[in-house]
């Protein structure tokens, strides 16, 4: 019988208890995978949205609200005059309820601006001009709102017509209601106001030059803050809060997992006291007994991690199918996250086994005689 066989048999001795402990760890790890995956996916999908629009720098004023705060549209012209700015597109982006959908991204874009160029028509047509009472819908937005080309869409105080369904190349774009900035400003009473500017930098700028350009923009337009595309979401207090909540909730779930494994391993040590004492009596060193307990708890953590990764991924897949959030999730389940989750589970297992292992090392061969 090998050392590893002893470890596996130790776990198989009480299959129900081992199984329940595995479930405990798995739920904790599933929470980590699901919540962090959703949170990272949200950030990644915004970055992808920026990339497909060809945006290098985003100028906005992200506070604690979900949508950026508005500022004067004249900021766009001031920024566009900077030498290293190749192009600028003013946007008014809002998160609002539209008809019976609770939350939709409404993206009002400067007519003719480069932020329209990535939109590929799937059906219908683009609006004819800046003031045509028309919108185009990302394909997911069209599904959520149950709209097709030619249907009316009530946006704020105005009934508009859906003239086209588009593929924007990213989840955020496909989940958006897209229209002309001038039209949106008119129907919402926000003339002369915008809350985002997409910037295209001059070709060939290095990362440092891009950051320097952000500083220049911040000096030119103190009303808002320029960030390299993809990093801007991290500047949002709301997103940071969501991200912290994800990790906080995950941490709680992991703590529950730690306690579960610790309880199981302690019970194992108590129940196998006689066996451990005999192992000591036949020459096992206390250090080897400690390693055995730690390996058992690490194995428990590893298996819990694997099951947790699968459970977390499945849970999010199920969530994605729910009508209320269909099209709003694009989780980022990359290999790195999976590896971190499994490693976390193993660490949880080892940490949970430390105390039971220490208890086992205090046993003496003579205790085996006491039964």
């Amino acid at each position, binding site marked *: 019988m090998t050392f590893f066989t002893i470890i596996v048999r130790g776990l198989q001795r009480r299959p129900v208890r081992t199984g329940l402990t595995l479930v405990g760890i798995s739920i904790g790890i599933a929470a980590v995978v699901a919540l962090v995956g959703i949170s990272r996916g949200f950030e990644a999908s915004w970055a992808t949205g920026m990339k497909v629009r060809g945006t290098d720098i985003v100028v906005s004023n992200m506070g604690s609200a979900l949508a950026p*705060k508005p500022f004067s549209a004249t900021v766009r012209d001031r920024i566009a005059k900077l030498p290293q700015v190749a192009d600028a597109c003013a946007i008014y982006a809002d998160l609002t309820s539209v*008809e019976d959908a609770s939350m939709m991204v409404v993206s009002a874009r400067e007519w003719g601006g480069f932020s329209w160029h990535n939109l590929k028509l799937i059906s219908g047509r683009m609006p004819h001009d800046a003031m045509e009472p028309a919108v185009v819908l990302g394909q997911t937005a069209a599904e959520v709102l149950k709209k097709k080309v030619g249907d009316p869409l*009530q946006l704020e105080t105005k009934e508009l017509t859906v003239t086209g369904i588009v593929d924007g190349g990213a989840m955020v774009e496909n989940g958006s209601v897209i229209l002309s900035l001038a039209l949106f400003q008119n129907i919402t009473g926000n003339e002369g106001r915008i809350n985002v500017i997409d910037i295209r930098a001059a070709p060939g700028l290095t990362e440092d030059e891009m950051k320097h350009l952000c500083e220049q923009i911040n000096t030119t337009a103190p009303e808002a803050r320029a960030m390299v595309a993809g990093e801007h979401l991290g500047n949002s207090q709301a997103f940071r809060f969501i991200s912290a909540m994800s990790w906080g909730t995950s941490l709680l779930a992991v703590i529950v997992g730690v306690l579960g494994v610790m309880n199981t391993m302690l019970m194992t040590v108590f129940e196998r006291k006689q066996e451990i004492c005999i192992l000591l009596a036949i020459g096992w060193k206390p250090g080897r007994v400690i390693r055995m307990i730690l390996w058992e708890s690490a194995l428990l953590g590893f298996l819990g991690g694997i099951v947790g990764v699968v459970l977390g991924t499945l849970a999010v897949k199920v969530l994605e199918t729910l009508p209320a959030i269909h099209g709003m999730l694009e989780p980022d389940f990359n290999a790195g996250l999976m590896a971190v989750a499994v490693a976390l589970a193993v660490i949880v297992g080892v940490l949970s086994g430390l105390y039971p292992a220490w208890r086992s090392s205090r046993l003496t061969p003579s205790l085996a005689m006491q039964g």
Partner: protein
Amino acid sequence: MKLLLTPFCLALLAVSAHAGEPATDLAAKLGSMQQDGASLVRLKMDVRGTTKFTLQLQIKQRRTSTTTEIVYQVLWPKERAGEAVLLRKTGDQAATGAVFTPPNKVSMLDSSQMKEALLGSDLSYADGVENFFIWKQQAIVGTEMVNRVSCDILESKPGRSQRSSYSSVRTWVDRRRDVPLRIEKYLSSGQLVRRIDTTRVATNDKNQSVPANLTVSDIRHGSTTDLNGASVKHAVNFSDREFTPAGFMEVVPARSAAE
């Protein structure tokens, strides 16, 4: 400028308080925060009674220390678009109002009709316009947890000159964030009529924490109405005409005041 029903919610709920303040001071603070000038609110209303329906609403409000004027306008669905309710209350006088049903029907509301349902929801007209924080009797009657948050309970009762269909209103205020998390409205018999729970708190365009989503429960009928705030805009320019029976029939966007 996201999701906040601030002024609207404050008519239903309350805001702000600091530990150790007497009830009258707390009520005065809540009352003054409710009277926050001209604002525009957009919200989605989901009514879940015997008949279920959803409305998108635009709410125009002008609230001063003496007068409250509110216009509710239905933006969606199409078959109800244009329906509007105008409510007005000055000082201790009884609230009055008017209801517009397209294409051209205008019905005046007198004070006896203020108990009726606002646009078919579980709110009454009075709930929209009544400010119970200016009532004569205010008392902090206890502390209780609401959704794991410790809240002070402020009890408001109308004075003799103040008309209301309720004999008392209790407000559970989260003292840390200055956000009301629950309101209960009682009849003189002591019967609970209406409960309003805050289901989501958000930050408004003034960087204040305010209720963004509410659930209104009609205890007697067992029905509920969910109010989901979409946006709020303060310092809005309204014309006087928009708050008249002639003007509240027109659905127009509100312009921000010059900055």
